[in-house]
């Protein structure tokens, strides 16, 4: 990307080598401060995300956060409110063609009214669970719209930390959703399902076949959806937004809606009843 230069990173050593392989080692240096940085990309999904974001905002720079931990949702929301537009949540699924393609297809109602949505993202602890959980909720909102109520069970599977979240949601338009985020599987494993069923057809993607399938009146159409990397599309969108070139394709209201759903889900996870989102 010509308009963006990576000037420094605060990465774990094992991740730095991966970034160097992609970006070129000349761009990757350990950064001890935010000096010379316009935009910080905070990919820490564990507790501490909010603190890092606040520090960067206090240093006067802009921040993209990939996901606060569940315990930080309220603080993150407040930070977002107070950030004067300098803090944005990553929303990576909204820049991922696997997700945007079925969203476009379902938005124009060619397949009728959406009736069920299933989003599953299961992998290993190489992924940040908090980020995965937010990605699942974000996708559920993308396809089904406003949520009326949510019921969630979160637990720790083969780990001391919460790493599994199963949610059933009811949309305001009556459609039903299921979301599953899990990082308890073995390393190297990632299973992803996107399924939007409508009155006159459905859209599905799974990570085994790696294709989007549109099932309508004319049978099954298979669409290759790999054109751009989601992170690149997101960074382009956000940089343009920060520069004032154009408004981001992800309005702040969607971020607030996502955080509200995540907070309602968290509340329902210790409740015997669904919680209004």
């Amino acid at each position: 990307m010509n308009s963006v230069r990576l000037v420094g990173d605060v990465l774990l050593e094992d991740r730095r080598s991966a970034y160097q392989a992609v970006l070129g080692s000349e761009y990757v240096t350990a950064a001890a401060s935010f000096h010379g940085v316009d935009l910080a990309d905070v990919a820490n999904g564990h507790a501490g995300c909010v603190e890092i974001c606040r520090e960067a905002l206090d240093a006067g720079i802009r921040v993209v956060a990939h996901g606060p931990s569940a315990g930080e949702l309220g603080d993150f929301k407040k930070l977002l409110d107070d950030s004067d537009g300098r803090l944005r949540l990553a929303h990576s699924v909204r820049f991922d063609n696997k997700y945007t393609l079925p969203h476009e297809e379902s938005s124009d109602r060619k397949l009728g009214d959406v009736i069920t949505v299933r989003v599953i993202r299961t992998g290993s602890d190489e992924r940040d669970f908090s980020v995965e959980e937010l990605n699942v909720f974000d996708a559920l909102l993308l396809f089904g719209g406003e949520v009326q109520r949510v019921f969630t069970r979160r637990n720790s599977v083969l780990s001391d930390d919460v790493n599994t979240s199963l949610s059933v949601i009811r949309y305001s338009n009556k459609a039903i959703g299921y979301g599953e985020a899990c990082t308890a599987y073995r390393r190297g494993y990632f299973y992803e399902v996107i399924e939007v069923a409508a009155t006159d057809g459905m859209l599905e993607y799974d990570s085994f076949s790696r294709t989007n399938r549109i099932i309508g009146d004319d049978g099954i159409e298979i669409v290759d959806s790999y054109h751009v990397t989601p992170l690149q599309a997101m960074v382009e969108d956000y940089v343009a937004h920060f520069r004032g070139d154009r408004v981001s394709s992800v309005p702040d209201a969607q971020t607030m809606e996502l955080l509200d759903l995540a907070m309602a889900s968290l509340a329902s996870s210790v409740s015997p009843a669904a919680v209004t989102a």
Partner: protein
Amino acid sequence: MNRLRMGAISFDHGHQYGWCGAHLQLPMVELVAVAEWIPEQVDRVKSVLVSPEGAMRALADERQGPVRFHEDYHELLARDDIDAVSISSANRYHLEHTEAAANAGKHVILEKPLATNLDDATEIVQVCETAGVHLSTAYPTRFSPPAMEAKRRIDRGEIGEIVSMHATNHLRQSTAGWFLDPELSGGGTIRDHIVHGTDLMRWFSGKEVVEIYAEGDTLARPEIEVDDVAMLLETFEGGIVGSCDPSWNRPMTAAVWGDVMVRLLGTEGAIEFDITGNYISRTLAGGGQSAEAWEAGAIQGYITHMSYQEDSNLWYVKDFAEAILDDRKPLVDGIDGWYGVACIEAAYESVKEHRVVEVPRYPGNGA
């Protein structure tokens, strides 16, 4: 007795044809008579099964005699040359037909779900216990090749202790007839379709469902009178949380009728399969989930098992027949069906209340 003599009562549910195919083919079973009284179904039953030239008669082995037809099922039950019956009537009539069969001393294969309410389900199980006949709930999905392969691998300890379970049992938006009459069916997709996935998860884990949260509604075809989409979270004994999606939400143009898909995560690996997916199951075995195991190179990747494409009805009826002949319980019994109904009732209550509902335990000792 070295051969089980079967009667078939009612073809309301098309599964009866599958079972009759098994009755005709299996060497330890003979189909003696069939009973059907609904005019629209009588002709087909006669032409396919009773007529010597019937299409299904080609399946029969040489020992199979003529198949007698009865328009009154009581006449079939009064025959002394029948040991057991397969009943596939509309759900509402399961108690009536099972009670009559048990009182006539016939062992019973009963279509799922066992009943339209838990009281009927309890009575169905107990009337068979009292009569001393075996009752088997028709869950042939346990006998599908990938499910049997998964069970063998689980029992060998290949994935360790199960810690997470998920199942789907989708169907095209195709259900018709009495299934859409709430008086006859007792409900839609929750009544009809949570039982297979839930039963497989019970069977694989050896744990009962203790509570359920469910959402359900009529959305795919708003004009029908029963629910056609649903999503369930099921908490099993030991705190394992699983999911079950029974929705009749597939388009009519979908490549297959639906699925019965199961994903299991264990302490040492994972298994996933779909019985409609060319009978392929994938097993992630060995090494566990730990970073240490990964770094030690203990991960072996997928083991893909391709099973023979065999009819699960054959294996299901074979187990039932051998159980009767050997005087043992069938692999799927009435209590398994009772728990299916208990989960159905809990799910419907949860749909109304928007809260978790406890699943009761079977009140008797069970047999």
